[in-house]
């Protein structure tokens, strides 16, 4: 029981990173993580995870996020006018310019493509693990990844993407 708490604690930074990329919103991301952790802590006694704790937590986070999308679609999203023209990442340097553009492009991806792409690229998870977390077949995962990448390519400009070369 103590071990699992340690493992949960250790996964928090990665959960925050994934949630931030999913929502591109500091507070909403941490709300999701908090919701995820509360569920995990409530469930750990009755339904201890069968596999790795990390994958279990990501599964909960994905579900919490999907639920929140369903909820916000019903209510409609509140958008601050100040948020519309400018992305959250400042653009003081040419390299950052490309990143800001990428950030905006990721925000425009359909959420099922976004959650797949970020698990594989940002979190570096193997395909099989990502597919299990998202509860989709491997083939579906790969087609979502493919579509997400094609969309990013279009959204961030020219196919050759020269400006991304400035990024390490």
């Amino acid at each position, binding site marked *: 029981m103590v071990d699992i708490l340690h493992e949960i*604690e250790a996964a*928090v930074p990665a959960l925050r990173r994934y949630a931030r990329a999913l929502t591109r919103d500091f507070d909403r991301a941490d709300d999701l993580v908090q919701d995820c*952790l509360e569920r995990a802590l409530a469930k750990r006694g009755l339904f201890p995870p069968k596999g790795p704790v990390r994958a279990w937590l990501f599964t909960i986070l994905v579900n919490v996020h999907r639920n929140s999308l369903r909820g916000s679609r019903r209510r409609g999203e509140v958008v601050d006018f100040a948020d519309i023209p400018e992305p959250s990442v400042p653009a003081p340097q040419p390299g950052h310019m490309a990143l800001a553009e990428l950030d905006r492009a990721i925000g425009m991806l359909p959420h099922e493509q976004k959650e797949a792409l970020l698990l594989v690229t*940002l979190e570096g998870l193997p395909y099989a693990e990502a597919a299990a977390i998202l509860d989709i077949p491997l083939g579906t995962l790969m087609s979502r990844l493919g579509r997400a*990448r094609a969309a990013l390519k279009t959204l961030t400009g020219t*196919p*050759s993407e020269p400006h991304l070369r400035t*990024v390490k």
Partner: protein
Amino acid sequence: MSEITRDTLMAYADGALTPAERADVDAYLADHADAAAEVALMQRQANAIRTLYGPVAAEPVPPRLSVEKLLQSREKRRSQIWTRAAAAVVLVGLGLGSGWLLRGQVDTPDIADRLIADAVSAHTVYVLENRHAVEVNGDDSEHLSSWLSNRLQTTLAMPDLSASGLAFLGGRLLPAPNVPGGRAAQLMYEDTTGARLTLYVTPSPGPNTPTYELANLGLDTALFWADAAISCTITAPYPAEKLQAIARTVFSQLNPTLTDYRT
């Protein structure tokens, strides 16, 4: 060498290939500049995504996400939650029964009463539907049987009530918060006059339930029955005697291993 598809290139870029597969792709990329550019782009995208969001993991974790803090506030809330949850269960149970629970003394309803309430609510809602009365049509009763059996984690046959003049319309899956597993199956039948009968089947709610209960609900009659494997509530606009006769056919078909059912 197997065929190099776009998916193969993507798996290569994501490091998802075996060493042998990687070697194949390496050889392919040496001769195909466009494919190599494609792979490079995918890798740049992934790198850029990590550069963009990776630093979040290095930020200090805010106190509200500390596991220790969350555990403490959980302990604090626990006693309150139990009290509220108990009250909520009673209220939900009371609300559902369309008057059934309000007969006589109002007390904490037992599980049989709550299941009858759920069954009657579901019956009332769905028998009024024409085109959407069922989720899966009765024509495909084999699929329906395996689907609902899986969901309820119990073997569930689709009873044939044609001998009682009832045609099978189909079934649907419903939430059932009062039973383990949280799911119920509703099967719907229709007689020649258009009157409809539903079976509301759940996994067994536990050993402490009465095996048999009959409820008169004005127009409808509901008959509840539970054994070690399942519970079933039959609801129809029929008098009690007619429903009991149908019930015998239902139970012998729903659970052929238990032959000792008697009303």
